[in-house]
């Protein structure tokens, strides 16, 4: 059978950073999507929330999260955060230099007419206090096929060398 883990698109923030990372016109020819995101922002906080939007939708997101900080574990319910799905925190500009947060986001059956269930694994490491390992279940309550994905960070710029890779996976 054919190999089916295919790079659809990639994005690398250049000098000066970017406000958003956008994947648009995602083809409907795959079964699942997998996005690998590595990001850092110039936010003054140690960490801040990065959000995800499907099809530029600002509503009907929900989530259940568990994380470990190195000293404790906790779980939270996540709703709509800054008009998107909260997927985790990313390193701000006061964290250890050259440290980026990393995420794997898996979206099965992204073209189906069912609501879209999302799996997120994330890490925010800092070689200091306030480090996190995170798992999140997300749901976008929309019957629309996913045709675009946007990552954004409210009030800060996604810094140079941040990357995102969008892969398509076919089941046949």
């Amino acid at each position, binding site marked *: 059978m054919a190999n*089916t883990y295919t790079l659809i698109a990639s994005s690398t923030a250049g000098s000066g950073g970017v406000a958003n990372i956008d994947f648009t016109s995602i083809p409907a020819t795959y079964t699942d999507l997998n996005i690998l995101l590595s990001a850092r922002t110039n936010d003054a906080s140690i960490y801040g929330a990065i959000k995800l939007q499907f099809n530029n939708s600002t509503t009907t997101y929900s989530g259940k999260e*568990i994380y470990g900080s190195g000293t404790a574990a*906790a779980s939270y319910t996540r709703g709509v955060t800054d008009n998107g799905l909260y997927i985790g925190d990313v390193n701000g500009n006061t964290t250890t230099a050259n440290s980026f947060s990393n995420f794997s986001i898996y979206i099965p*059956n992204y073209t189906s007419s069912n609501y879209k269930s999302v799996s997120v694994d994330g890490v925010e490491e800092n070689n200091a206090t306030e480090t996190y390992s995170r798992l999140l279940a997300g749901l976008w309550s929309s019957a629309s096929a996913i045709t675009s994905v946007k990552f954004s960070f409210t009030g800060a710029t996604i810094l140079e060398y941040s990357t995102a890779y969008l892969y398509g*996976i076919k089941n046949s």
Partner: protein
Amino acid sequence: MAAGSTYVPLATNTLGSAATSIDFTSIISSYTDLILIVSGTVVTNGAGIFIQLNSDTASNYSFTYLSGNGTTAASGRRASQAYIGFNWNTGWSDTAQCNGIMHLQNYANTTTYKTTIARSNNANGSSLPGTETTAGLWRSTSAINAIKVYTAGGGNLASGFTATLYGIVAA
């Protein structure tokens, strides 16, 4: 892993009506690892998604879980079970779409017991929602040649439930 060089679909099944299980049989041994993707809903709200390997129904499985239901983080382990759970302390929904991802490492070797790493996600179910990861062990040196996907307590996987098995090649 180089993009496009591996990750081969071995089999896929989407249920046209509710069923007790999805079975993958005659799994070839020419890959290094397997990845099992499941998505959909269950008939009984809050049911878990389990697997059995090679039709082994004996208590040769164990797993350790880490889960969060939106309020509480928990971890525990289950020894001498008849299955490995995608989830244990959370459940799947009968209405909201859920998903699971399981890696089965070095599945074709005949020397070591088999290990799994799984993720389960139910963001919005009305019973036992949450996100969970499990590390599983099947105490058998047999190569894995069959996987059964089913729900707890003899319930059904709902119509539209999908399971796909991929083969991963190391070289």
